[in-house]
């Protein structure tokens, strides 16, 4: 199989990711692309504790991810690529557009300057513009926190 989900979720690996999406999509590989976590053994240990033993977890930097996306696309596992921010996902899309074709907005929460678009998606106008640029370039972007909820198209978030 291949990468079956590319998700932006600022809470990184948590219940919605492991239980919600992991079970529904038969995920057996989670790739967390986050430079900070990739350099922190104790954070990696904590995130591993949230994952069932049958799911492999890899913690990689943005640079490593860009190099390995093609391998993950063809290694026989059902993979979930996870980033904590849209800048990292945009960079992955730029480096591997053939792999990052669909982007799931799973959790981008409130911070100063952001406006609520959905209860689990807050964006500044600039961030919305970044996503619109990605979509104009061919990516399909929807907001959906769990597979049991209805996906919301990016155009509905403006």
């Amino acid at each position, binding site marked *: 199989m291949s990468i079956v989900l590319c998700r932006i979720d600022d809470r990184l690996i948590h*219940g919605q990711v492991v239980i919600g999406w992991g079970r529904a999509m038969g995920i057996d590989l989670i790739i967390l692309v986050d430079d900070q976590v990739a350099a922190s053994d104790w954070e990696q240990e904590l995130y591993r*504790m949230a994952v069932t033993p049958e799911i492999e977890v890899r913690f990689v930097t943005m640079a490593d991810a860009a190099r390995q996306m093609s391998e993950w696309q063809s290694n026989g596992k059902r993979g979930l690529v996870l980033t904590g921010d849209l800048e990292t996902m945009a960079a992955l899309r730029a480096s591997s557009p053939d792999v990052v074709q669909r982007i799931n907005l799973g959790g981008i929460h409130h911070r100063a300057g952001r406006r609520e678009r959905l209860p689990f998606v807050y964006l500044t106008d600039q961030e919305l513009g970044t996503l619109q640029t990605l979509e104009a370039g061919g990516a399909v972007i929807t907001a959906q926190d769990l597979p049991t909820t209805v996906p919301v198209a990016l155009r509905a978030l403006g």
Partner: protein
Amino acid sequence: MSEELRGVVVCHGALAGALVDAAEQISGLGGALIPVSNMGCDRDTLEDRILAAVDGHPAVVFVDLASGSCLVAVLKRLRSEQLVKVVTGVNLAMLVDFVFHRSLSPADAASRAAAAGETSIRIP
């Protein structure tokens, strides 16, 4: 200890508020526990909420799950603090025990609360 410990309860959704409310109803002691929710905020904001709740005081921080965003946020900002201890798997029994033993050291209060919480889990 000259200063009584502060209890900070960090949970998903509305759980922390409900636990604190229930603990206060049972114990009759108000103000010993401060609830923090991860609702509607990103990681940085959650860390700020936790830091504001502890506010530099000696404390025991109770977290719902032994993994996940709440625990990561707590440990990220407080793991090197000597006067703050963290207990996961928070339940009502441990909070009720804690509010009556806030003159202990953070380590002793955390151990005692964890034991009280474990003891309360039974199949009667």
